[in-house]
């Protein structure tokens, strides 16, 4: 049936409903990735958001057991140009429409996504709602809605858990972890302990980690308590540390850099990224609304290791004194080009080196 997308600035787009027939509110952003819609809509970094896909046809790959980035999708809505009703998933157990219905997430298709994305590129992300009727009442409702800033609390684990392996012991601090990180750690047979972000320094050190990962996660890192930054300041001196996505932003904040919202957010895998030290250029999945403010970096503490070649945004940092580093992009390649997975190789080589020198 015909439904409507209303933006906070009053713009209305028409489309046809799919997925759940529900009314939804969220922050609307657009994503330019041409593959991996299932990973994207299940990635906890998009908690509370509605995603417009630039890729004109979405749904043809169905829903696969191996392509979940979290057990439950956290998005609030999905807007596409064309919905592929026929799934090529060989098991044909699940398609996108049924998946969204199951999770009570509404979708909208037959939307002029090119016009919508051009509009969002101008305005930046804003509040939006998917409703049946675009009347004054719906607009009032939207304006009155206050979106949560508790996305990390919504998605991160409340209790510690293990993902056992026989290799190095890696502690992951969970801010809304995506499965790709655990999958990569599994490739190295790491013995993983996932801890809540409210964990204390002692709780981490008691576990005697060989390495520490600050996970990806949703939202604005500045909405997290200062205790997180204190935790990072101590942990970075104790064992090799890798921050990813939100973890990178927190690593920067813990070392006195500041963040600024991007004028044009990065959600996709079409930006060339340069590793400064080797001048090598590669592509990786990105999902960021903020970037580390280049001028705020204290060069006595940190230096920039990767840069986005489209807008120059900082994509990686490294500490001058400790084996601690971070990347803004997602090196777990779920979805995304595989080139960036070398970041995990770097991390594990650093861990081996650290264990060698400290045992």
């Amino acid at each position, binding site marked *: 049936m015909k439904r409507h997308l209303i933006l906070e600035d009053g713009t209305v787009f028409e489309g046809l409903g799919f997925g759940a027939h529900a009314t939804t509110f969220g922050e609307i952003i657009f994503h330019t990735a041409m593959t991996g819609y299932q990973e994207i809509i299940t990635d906890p970094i998009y908690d509370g958001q509605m995603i417009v896909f630039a890729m004109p046809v979405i749904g043809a790959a169905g829903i696969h057991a191996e392509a979940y980035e979290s057990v439950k999708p956290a998005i609030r809505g999905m807007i596409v140009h064309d919905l592929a009703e026929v799934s090529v998933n060989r098991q044909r157990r699940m398609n996108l429409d049924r998946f969204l219905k199951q999770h009570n997430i509404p979708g909208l298709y037959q939307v002029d996504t090119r016009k919508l994305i051009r509009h969002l590129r101008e305005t930046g992300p804003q509040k939006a709602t998917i409703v049946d009727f675009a009347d004054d009442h719906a607009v009032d409702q939207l304006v009155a809605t206050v979106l949560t800033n508790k996305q990390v609390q919504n998605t991160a684990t409340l209790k510690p858990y293990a993902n056992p392996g026989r290799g190095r012991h890696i502690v992951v601090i969970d801010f809304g972890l995506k499965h790709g990180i655990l999958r990569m750690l599994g490739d190295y047979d790491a013995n993983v302990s996932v801890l809540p972000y409210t964990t204390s320094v002692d709780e981490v050190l008691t576990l005697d980690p060989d390495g520490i990962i600050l996970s990806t996660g949703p939202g604005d890192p500045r909405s997290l308590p200062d205790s997180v930054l204190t935790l990072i300041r101590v942990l970075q001196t104790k064992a090799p540390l890798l921050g990813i996505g939100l973890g990178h932003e927190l690593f920067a904040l813990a070392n006195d850099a500041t963040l600024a919202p991007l004028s044009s957010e990065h959600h996709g895998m079409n930006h060339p990224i340069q590793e400064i030290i080797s001048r090598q250029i590669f592509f990786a999945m990105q999902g960021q609304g903020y970037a580390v403010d280049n001028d705020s970096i204290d060069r006595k503490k940190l230096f920039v290791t990767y840069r986005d070649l489209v807008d120059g945004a900082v994509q990686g940092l490294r500490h001058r004194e400790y*084996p601690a580093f971070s990347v803004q992009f997602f090196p777990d390649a779920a979805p995304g080009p595989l080139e960036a997975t070398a970041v995990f190789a770097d991390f594990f080589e650093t861990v081996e080196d650290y264990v060698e020198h400290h045992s």
Partner: protein
Amino acid sequence: MANKEVLDNASLQRALTRITYEIIERNKGGEDLVLVGIKTRGEFLAHRIADRLEQLEGVRIPVMAIDITNFRDDIPDHHDDLGLNQAERLNISEKNIVLIDDVLFTGRTIRAALDALIHIGRPKTIALAVLVDRGHRELPIRADFVGKNIPTAQNEKIKVFVQEIDGKDAVEIVH
């Protein structure tokens, strides 16, 4: 029997990158840093590390290459010649030296290099960076920065290839 590749091009680049980051970690500010490459391949690796430091810091760290042949303990007649002319010989007194070689094996090359360095000056510190540590030391020498530890049998040979003279970057075990 075919050679076995133990480091491909990409992992060799990553190893050099990691060594560079570790050198930064342990030499705050990079002042008074001098890289000394042991000829032949250590020299090229030293320049690669200097290139990487320059990319990050915008400063060119001095690089010196030394030929340690005349300091070897299996050559009876030393004549203390580093194979450097006056212009190539850097002042290393009170400097922090990172000595760079491709493979660390018995440690005898490094001992000779230490002898050669101390022959021309009195550095503040000397650290050792190697692309490959293959074990089987005969002297009490340990590397500070290791690209890759490769456990080997005594009779195996490790061959490091560098783009500059070998046409590719790789490390292979030669049987």
